[in-house]
């Protein structure tokens, strides 16, 4: 679609797996981890897309591919119509500065030696968007905006003089200062004190509201995702298994893994569906099962799920990849284990 | 109420560090009944782990118990020798941690590690008995007995945590202390581990003391909840009551700050930052962040206000302001 900010088409990112010396001597072939294995989606302007899924399902790798930190083996990433893999020189730099990142660990994602204000100003200098004094002034303003006041004092602090929540605010200020169109936020709250997480989410939300940025929010916690996301992509072993408006996907999922995910999430709400039972431990992306990758754990698996890769299907706005999906309202009726 | 198995009285555990004295646990009283599931919740650094581990007499240096007592089945753990404590642990009180790899020996099969503990504590008399008990324990936690000959690295994170639980329950303890047992696990795996623990509690009458920062998880599984803030238990009561009508403003704000998947209420962070445990605020330690705070909160430690099934340490606990 013309209006979409980001289009990801059949993206694949593989990593070679470490082989022991013995395995090498025996001439065993390279094993590969199919961290992201055929992912497609589109992201609109001002849209917040949550990417949720099991540990090791490839969420972080997907984010890194969009940020240009890992190289896909195939597939395309179109940002505002520009193919990120093909863009060169000036065009590449112009596109790159419209994409920012916020990482999980606020203790490690800032340079320990540099005053935090300088780090917020740095993207402006890197992209030659402002001179030194102008950059400093804008960084002060941005620190103010993310709630680090008085900014003139925070500007000169080093990361170790800030709390985890404050550091994450610095990271967000740094991400916003170039006025990007897209922020990729990988687990931005999972290392923050629970009582402070909401304010970090609120910062991202207001960036969307006031600055019109789109956000890809990578998280393992679908409850966090539901706070600010419009759409959700549920990943399992390198693939998206269900995709759609987050309310629809959470309340009335089609894919059994989504059902397991939402019903396993702890909740103190009275109104909640019964637990959807799954077997086994988490999947291994180095040895994905044939057919539907979820079939060994799925209580609804059919014989053909072992052989056939499920095609995509759509149902009232959501897309899912499953041969034997839950019906409408199926989540609330429960399943016999 | 059932018989009390652990009774904590006026407990103070301080860490003597180079940068000052950390009052990790600073005057805590709790009574834990046999067979119940108690969860300690609170923010990072509030002293949850320190409190839970001191319930089995485990205080790591530079920490010291500087006051109070911990009665386990009537015996004061703070007065026992290291050897007596060691025998008590494992045999009567088991423990599991967030990262099971930290105490599983990577070079030995998981079965032999469990069997060894079983022999050492005299639960079995022969090696073959011990091995049989180890295999049974693994079956109970849902690890096939054939996996007893696997090395830790051959198991997934969830399976390793199951092995850790198996090692703890093989000795048939009365109490299991679980410090963030599922924090490192995926939610779907977490749900199954929690179900497993719940089953053990029901079927064997195991007493469980769990530590977590996830108040929704606490609300789901526990019988009673202790809410910690800056070294003190500020609220104590049945899970239903603590979650449903919290007495302490901190509890209420904490619940309101975490998103819940099934209710679309707005989440709001608690203003301010958690206090520095080396310099806790005067009076009520929550007062700098509390919307209800008055002058008195600054200067005086609030009294313990009792409710039907517990209490809260707040001047306003009895009034509408504290509840919902």
């Amino acid at each position, binding site marked *: 679609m013309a209006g979409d900010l980001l289009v990801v088409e059949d993206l694949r990112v593989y990593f070679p797996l470490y082989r022991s010396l013995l395995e090498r001597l025996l001439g065993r072939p390279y094993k590969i981890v199919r961290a992201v294995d055929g992912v497609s989606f589109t992201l609109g302007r001002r849209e917040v897309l949550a990417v949720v899924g099991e540990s090791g399902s490839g969420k972080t790798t997907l984010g890194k591919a969009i*940020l*240009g*930190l890992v190289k896909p083996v195939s597939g395309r990433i179109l940002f505002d119509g520009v193919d990120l893999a093909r863009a060169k020189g000036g065009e590449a*730099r112009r596109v*790159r*500065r419209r994409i*920012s*990142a916020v*990482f*999980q*660990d606020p*203790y*490690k*994602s*800032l*340079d*320990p*030696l*540099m005053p935090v204000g300088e780090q917020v100003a*740095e*993207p402006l200098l*890197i*992209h030659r968007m402002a001179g030194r004094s102008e950059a400093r002034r804008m960084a002060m303003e941005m620190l103010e905006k993310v709630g680090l006041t008085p900014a003139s004092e925070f500007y000169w602090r080093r*990361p*170790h003089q800030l709390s985890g929540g404050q550091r994450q605010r610095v*990271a967000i200020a*740094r991400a916003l200062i*170039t006025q990007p169109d897209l922020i*990729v936020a990988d687990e931005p709250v999972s290392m923050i004190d629970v009582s402070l997480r909401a304010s970090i989410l609120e910062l991202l939300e207001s960036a969307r509201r006031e600055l019109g940025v789109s956000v890809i929010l990578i998280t393992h916690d679908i409850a966090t995702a539901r706070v600010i996301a419009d759409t959700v992509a549920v990943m399992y072993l390198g693939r998206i298994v269900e995709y759609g408006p987050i309310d629809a996907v959470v309340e009335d999922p089609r894919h059994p893994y989504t059902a397991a995910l939402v019903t396993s999430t702890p909740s103190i709400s009275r109104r909640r569906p019964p637990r959807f039972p799954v077997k086994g431990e988490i999947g291994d992306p180095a040895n994905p099962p044939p057919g539907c990758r979820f079939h060994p754990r799925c209580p609804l698996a059919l014989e053909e799920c072992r052989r056939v890769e499920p095609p995509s299907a759509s149902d009232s706005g959501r897309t899912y990849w499953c041969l034997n999906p839950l019906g409408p309202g199926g989540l609330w009726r429960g399943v016999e284990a | 109420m059932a018989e009390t198995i652990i009774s904590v009285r006026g407990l103070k555990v301080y860490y003597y560090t180079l940068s000052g004295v950390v009052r990790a646990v600073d005057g805590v009283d709790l009574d834990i009944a046999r067979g119940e599931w108690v969860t300690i919740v609170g923010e990072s650094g509030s002293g949850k782990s320190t409190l839970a581990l001191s319930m089995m007499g485990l205080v790591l240096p530079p920490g010291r118990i500087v006051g109070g007592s911990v009665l386990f089945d009537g015996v004061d753990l703070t007065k026992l020798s290291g050897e007596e404590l060691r025998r008590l642990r494992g045999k009567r009180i088991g423990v599991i941690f967030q990262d099971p790899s930290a105490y599983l020996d990577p070079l030995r099969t998981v079965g032999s590690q469990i069997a060894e503990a079983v022999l050492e504590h005299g639960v079995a008399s022969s090696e073959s008995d011990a091995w049989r008990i180890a295999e049974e324990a693994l079956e109970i936690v849902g690890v096939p007995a054939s996996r007893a000959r696997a090395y830790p690295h051959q198991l997934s994170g969830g399976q390793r945590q199951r092995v850790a639980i198996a090692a703890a329950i093989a000795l048939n303890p009365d109490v299991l202390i679980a410090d963030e047992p599922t924090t490192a696990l995926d939610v779907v795996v977490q749900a199954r581990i929690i179900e497993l623990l719940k089953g053990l509690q029901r079927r064997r009458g195991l007493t469980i003391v769990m530590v977590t920062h996830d108040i929704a998880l606490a609300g789901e599984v526990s019988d009673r909840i202790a809410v910690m803030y800056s070294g003190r238990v500020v609220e104590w009561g049945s899970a239903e009551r603590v979650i449903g009508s919290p007495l302490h403003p901190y509890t209420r704000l904490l619940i309101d700050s975490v998103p819940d998947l099934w209710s679309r209420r707005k989440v709001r962070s608690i203003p301010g930052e958690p206090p520095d445990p080396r310099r806790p605020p005067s009076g009520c330690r929550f007062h700098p962040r509390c919307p209800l705070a008055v002058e008195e909160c600054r200067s005086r430690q609030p009294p313990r206000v009792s409710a039907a099934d517990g209490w809260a340490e707040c001047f306003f606990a009895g009034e509408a302001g504290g509840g919902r």
Partner: protein
Amino acid sequence: MEGGLFSRLMGVVAGLVRGPGGLMTATGLAIITMFALVAIAAPWIAPYPPDVRPPGAGLLEPPSLRHPFGTNDLGYDVFSRIVWGARVVLKVVLLSSLMSMAVGVPLGLISGYYGGPLDRLLSMVMDSLYAFPGIIMAIAVASVLGPSTFNAAVALMVVYVPTYYRMTRARVLELKNEPFIEALQAMGAPGWVILVRHILPNAAPTILVVFGLASADAILTEAGLSFFGLVAVYPQPDWGLDLYYGKNYLLDGAWWLVFFPGASILLLALGFALLGEGLSERFRVRGGSYG
């Protein structure tokens, strides 16, 4: 900004001296400073010229009030020779350390950060240089270049470049995996910005430690060079050279001819070694990211 350069420098020093390993750092700095002051103030400290026999001085006089370190076979005052000799050794060692750093650190940064064929080539060259015994290589290079302080410094530089290179490269490999570097890459920062503004400052403590330890080693190697006459020419004052000529009189009981130059060499080397060890203690304790 806050205060002058001097007071800021003193602030840094005070910080180093107070932290862990501070006693070692402080002792090392004190020893080095003492020798540096002696070298700078040599004309005022030395009671006699180093290469002239003072009037009334005997040959091979044992230490006395007039000649605290005695006199040598030509009647020169040993104390004055030690004082002037400090200039030579400090000049050679500091010059060589700075040159090794100037070559080894940038190569280590580039090699570690960019990797690839250049990294493999450089690593191979440096490893083979490193495998040579330092003193033999220094002698080989210095003999080719001929005796002079500058040539000696160049010879020492060749010996210690691989040390700076390897340590810098190792630290860069560590830092390269830190999320804050990844964050910079994600924002499209060019390699040189990341290297100069972020990796170099974070690698600086490691480089300082190497500076201390490698300089300590370089002092011993320098002594070897000057022992073989590859730094200075007699009668220029030079510790290693004095050691060489002094050893001939050891059997005659003139112990002071070797003791004072030898002790000076060891003490100065100890100063640098303590500085290096103290710093490494200090920075290790503060953890990987020095946060």
